[in-house]
């Protein structure tokens, strides 16, 4: 009955072709994990940085899990979206990262990618926005045959997570 607290924030994102970004996030866990409190998915505000490239969200994450096994350690999946000047939203990147498995404070950066699509789609994307999205967003964190996808590297999302573990040592997991 080990417990895991994840407290932190999605600091922001940088390196995207345009700023004015927001992020949808979620935490995925295996069946052994049970959410005791906190929200396991959410969406940040849209940040339009006036200076610099980095969009700051400082979106809090506060989760408390109980687990009966190590399998399915929580992983965080992210979707970065861009809101253009017309108020339309389009996908800018998918990314995921594991929640650190050692206690303490962690700074992480999660690289993101997005599907490229055919040249027609790319052309359309250039002029009218939008873009290819995964039909099945589970693919972000499940390792299906992703090599078939043509993707494009996008920016990175900065995260700061504090991890507190409890009673893991009772079950022989040294932290």
């Amino acid at each position, binding site marked *: 009955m080990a417990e895991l607290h994840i407290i932190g924030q999605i600091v922001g994102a940088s390196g995207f072709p345009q700023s004015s970004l927001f992020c949808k996030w979620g935490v995925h*866990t295996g069946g052994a994990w049970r959410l005791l409190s906190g929200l396991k*998915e959410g969406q940040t505000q849209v940040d339009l940085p006036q200076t610099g490239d980095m969009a700051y969200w400082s979106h809090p994450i506060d989760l408390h899990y109980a687990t009966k096994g190590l*399998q399915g350690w929580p992983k965080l999946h992210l979707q970065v979206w861009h809101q253009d000047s017309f108020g339309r939203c389009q996908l800018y990147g998918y990314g995921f990262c594991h929640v650190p498995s050692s206690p303490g404070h962690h700074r992480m950066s999660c690289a993101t990618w997005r599907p490229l699509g055919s040249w027609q789609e790319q052309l359309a994307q250039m002029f009218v926005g939008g873009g290819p999205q995964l039909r099945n967003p589970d693919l972000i*964190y499940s390792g299906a045959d992703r090599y078939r996808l043509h993707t494009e590297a996008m920016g990175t999302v900065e995260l700061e997570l504090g991890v507190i573990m409890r009673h893991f040592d009772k079950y022989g997991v040294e932290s």
Partner: protein
Amino acid sequence: MASSGDIREKLRKKRQALQETLAKSKNEDDVQEPEGSEEDPGETLKRTIRAQRQRKKKKLLEQTLVQESHDNDDVEEISTIQRDGAEEGSAEKADHSVISLRSQTGSQKGLSSRAQQTPSSQPQSLDDFVKRRLEERLRAARSKGESLQQQEASLEPASRLQGLRDRDTVTRFDREVDPDRSGRHDASPALSTRVKFREAARRVGKGLPNAEEAYNFFTFNFEPDPPDESERSSVKRQKQRKIADRDEGRGDEAEEQEEAEADEDNEEEHENQSEEAPLVQNEEEDLFVIDQSPQDFLEVKKAVYVGYQNLIQRENEQLFTPSFRTVPTSVKLPENMKPRYLEDEGLYVGERPHVSLTNENILENRILKMEEGKKWFGDDGRIMALPDPIKESSTRPPLFHMEEDVDPSLQTVYRKALKSKYANLYIAGAADPEGDYQLDVDVSGLIFSHHPLFSREHVLGARLAQLYDQYLTRQHNNLTGHLTDKLNGLRSALRNMLEIHGGQSLTQAMQQRFSEYSLEIRTTRQLRDSEQEKDRTLLKNIVKVWKELKALREFQKFSNTPYKLYLRRENVDRASDEREHEDEILAEVVEFEAESEEDYQKKLTEYNKQLEEWKLWRRKQKAKKKKKKKKKKGQTHEDTEDEEQEASESEGPIEEGPPKPEPPERPDFDSIEQQVREKASRIRRKPGEAILIPELSASGNITASELCPRPEIARRQDVARRSLFIKILYNDKEVSRTDSRSLNTDFRVHFGQIFNLKIVHCPQSINLQVFEEIGSSCSLLARVFVPVPEPSVVTGNVPVEEYEFSSNQRVMFDHEGVGSDVPLSFEADGSNKQTLLTSGKLSCCVSWGIGEDDVPLAPPVSQQPGGIHSGLDRLDAVTYIGASGLYDMKKIGEWATQSRLDPNDPKNASIMQLLKVASSGEVTAPEYFRLEHLQEEFNFVTDEELERSKRFRLLRLRNREVAEFRNYKCVPALEREVTDKVFQEYEKRLKEGEIIDTKEHLDSHRALVAKYLQKIRESVINRFLLAKHHYVLSDLVIEEEIPSIGILGLNLFKLAEPKRPLKPQRKERKKVTAQNLSDGDIKLLINIIRAFDIPIRRPQSNKPGQAPQSAIQGSDWFLNQVQVRPFVEVSFQRTVLQTTTADGPNPCWNEELQLPFSAPNGDYSNASLQSVKDEVFINMFDEVVHETGVNDKDRGKSIHTWVEKHWLGSVKIPFSTIYSQSRIDGTFKVNTPAVLLGYSKERSHGANGGYDIMRSLSEGTFITLFITMEPQLVPGETIREKFDSQEDEHLLQASERFEREAAQGYPDRPCITTVIDLNGKTVFITRFIRPLNPPQEFLDAFPNNPQEATALVARFVSLIPSLPDRVSFSGACDLWSTCDQFLTLLAGDEEEHAVLLCNYFLSMDKKAWLIIGTAIPEGPTTYVLTYEQSRYLIWNPSSGQYYGQYDTFCPLQTIGCLVNADNVWFNVQEYTTPMRLSFDITKANLWKPFFSRSFSHPGLSSVQPEELVYRRTDKAAAAELQDRIEKILKEKVMEWRPRHPTRWNRYCTTTLKQFLPKLEMSRGQDVTEGHRHELQSLLGENRISGFPLHLPFCEIRPIIEAVYSTGVHSVQVSNVEFALAVYVHPYPNNVLSVWVYLASLVRT
């Protein structure tokens, strides 16, 4: 040198000179200072300290500036390779040791002799040097004369600089071998010229320069000269030569000067070994005194070119080029070692990556030259290398046909850039409430399996068709065949086993298997038998029905149905068939025998065991009996009967003991065969009999109508008249309907229509309603619920499905139609009746639409909670290889041999292992499938344990915001600290969900209602939960409003206003959002200003017979002078505060009371605050002081006084009102009891106040209050959710527009046109108004006094308890219930009361309207306006009071709208108070109508029922309730007086009890006088104070509260007695009026 460069140089020099002259003065000061120091020792000390400090600073600066100075230095030089120098210099700085080495090599090679020009600096000597320099400077100053000193000082910095440079060149010259150096001796003249120049500059300071000087100034080249220590003479010579060459006009002075300088240089250079430091020092001085531009240190030089050959040569010196020849192996290996080839020794060596031989050779050669070069070589003499990691073939399959065959989960969708409305959905899975989705509903047709219009033949035909269908499906599935095959297979397996192990004794495992097989055979056989039987009966039935049908046709002489059944015979070979049959039977018999034998054996053993037991028991029993008998004999034998009885009793248990087991019957093998044969004949066709295959066709003829008898013709006509259509309801809302199609004679209807539903809301239900149309009327036949399809179900790939439906409508016909739900018999004697219901099959399909680009327009699958699928599966080896791989060991083995796997390759280890295992024995693949394998093995704890954890449960419940745990602040960190108590309440609530607690409510109906309300509340809250998550910007961002130009102008205007310090300015209070509050932060401020017309005390019964002599009487007489001494007590949440006591009936307190507020569970969220049910009780008391003078003889007279408080009246204001209003300000009518014993209203007390006019207008006591909260809380807003509506879209739009315009024009006037009903649907408000009958008994009560009846009706309405929606729905919304709902619920808001009252009035033929307005203290509320006898009356529906239009004390403050059944009028007049309004609604300029000529009333039907049905309330129940209330109240009063005995005066109680019904009759009016007299005559001896309380009944708690708040129980006098009487008057529909008469009596 007259190039442009020269000119530039000259210009530079000029600048320099200017700077120097400027610097001179500073230098002078510099020198002067040390001079002064000689005189004053103190000064010296100071100076040295300063010098030291300066030194230190310089040292520091040096470190940083060294590089810079170096560069500057180089720049000043003549050298052509200044860059080199600079570079070298910097390099030197970096590393001293390198310098030495480099200089060495440099000299060797003769390269860049300039490299040495900058000698290494010695920082450590720097300090010394500076000191010395200072000393030296002092010395020089001393030795020279005054004038000379001056000159010297001015020169010194420059000369020092010079010295440095000289030093530089010294080293350079030392090693100078470059011949072209010699040609550049212009440096020395430059020195002289510079000196000269300085002189000139100095002179400039004195006077104007002459022409020659001017010329020199501009033309000379100021270059640092390179004099040398050792070659001083030559330098001198050179110098002189140069001077002679160049400048003859220079005087001796200059020469002398030079000499002196040279000397000095000399001197300096001796000391000055570290040349850098002083340079920096000086430069720094110069630099920091005056800013020198970088140009002063720069010089433009030619590009340096080194010839190619030179370059090559130089490079050759430095570079090493390894040869590309093969290195012999012996060199690469250690001495005396032979190369060793691992591969030959059988070890696995991977394939080396390919490197070209040349490259390898070069690499080897290079490595060998390196230190420890040999360690890079392996034993075989080759460079060590890992096996080639590159695979020959690409492991990534090529990406052909990208678009076509990508895994569907990998497919990407091109999505247009979305407007944020749709985009703000959560990630992955969270089902979104809205989306752009399309549902296709394909309604293809309908087949009736029974219809009322079926004729008998149809019924049979339908049955036949049904049976045939069944037959076909059975035939298709062919279960019998499958089972037979299986049986045969099992039998043969068993036989084989027996054959193999025939004679041998069976092993344990084999025996096990054997028994398993036989068991399997048994079950399979049974299954097969039952299936065969079914087949057989089905066939029989088909034939039977067909026969019936034929008989019927013949009987009625016409046919209605086209069905025809053929039976096809399939002949079989008789002999083989018989044989098979026999075999089968034989096999069965054998099996049966075996089985029964086995059974028998089993039973036999069991029997033996039981027999044994039984015998044992028997023996015991016998022994017992004997004992007993012995005992019996010892006893008296008088009563034999008794003994017999006993005996029988004792026998009883014997019989109860285990019965004697019956020995099992030996199975009769003969009968077995008989049985089997019987069964076979029953369920199987006889051997040799042909196989019958029925075939149903619809090819028969239907007799034409003309040939049919009359009733049949009528039936057919009826059929033709009917048509059907289907309505499609999505989420219980009709969205579409099919065309209506006429019913055919075969009762099949084909629609073939597809409806594309564009949906916004989540699909909850899809419902198809089948309607039958006869002429113009249509009736609902049946409903078909179609499941919502999975998101993967997409149009085009779904087959049409059939959904059965049926209806239990009863239909009968007088023609041939058999009707529905009517018993029907086919037998001649009418027996065997059947009842057929209308039923049928609807074939339709529902699927998700496909967009233009093949995107399914379906909402995403919602993610499973807890995330059941995880990526883990892929880590498992078994799945990784693939499940089939495990079974196909052979294949793997084959492949392994084919590909000749290297068994030593570690990469193949796992496969090798696998193969080994496979060949050694069998690998058992698990028979089960596990979603998350290996999960179990690694689990820390089990699920149950996790569930058991109380702490986790607590945390999760808190997270779910379960009411009990929502504000649970601290969850303990340890499991054991969580007590079970925490959950008790919660579990109790869960358990009691369904049980109705009558104790709380005293009345079962109310209890039910409470439950019902609770349920509604829950559902409403659930409905709003989602809506609550829709935020708009203003919810999250608080933005100070930007002042508009108007306000700005106003403020500017205010600036000009004269200051008036005495005029207080209103300060805007800051609003606080509720979330960051905690207990004690909120205070309720209640300002009690004044009251008027308080009842005054009556003089106590001044009976003539009594002499007013006693002390009490005396004091009474005295106190009688005081009319009344009122004070106000405010109680809220059990905090009680009171004002001071004032005097007289019109007191003025003007006091502020602060009451703390604490929210339930410490939850200060909006929702929680809104649902606070607490009320503020404002009670008015009279303080009565009694004095008991006690004459104490010894100590003189002492007077004891005690203070009593007598309740006069109360006002109660719900907290929710204060919260929603944020402040309440006004004069309220005090709720005074109908009778107040001992008090009376002062009426004719002179004309001492302006209140008299008001008093005459309105009776009662009034209190002026101001209530607010500190800090001000922001009340929650109602939900902006748009609700479903069945109203017309136009109407909704119009109402929205109307409300918007109203809000814009008159923001403070409430305007409502649409409301939400209990089902959460938007309904137009006028639909609620409809004349409804009040209970008839009210109208009958006063047949000729409509006034009274009206009052009675109003009273009835006011007696229905009021429950604000805000409270019950935690502020979610304002729901309107219809009158019947309201009367059922018996609880509602003001609007329900108002609607009911208005409807009653309308039915009583009054003109009545609903007023939407604001009142105090309710805030936005609903009143009723009536027009009678040419005046307008305003009714408060919750109190039953009415007010004239011009009544000052009318609580209604603002009127926004008037509503009646036809229209809504919005108040567009200047004023809003009723007094100043005109109620003439016909004038459009005063009242803006909603429906006007341009938008006429569409004829909205009412949502109210046509008539209200009233239940008579049970009188007995009321009486019972009355007793219970009385009992509870008495208990409570005693409970509140824990320290005093509470005595009840029975006599008084009965008197009061008699009086209460009268009060109810008169509705508490105009009985005071008579009542008092009556009482007083009865209780003359007692001082009595008391009053009746009147309440509508809803719960017991408010009654207790009300009694408590009067404070009657708090009388502390010892001889006090109490009287309490309760009366409950029942009104229709369980509306109860409760009277509580409370009195305290003090015996005088």
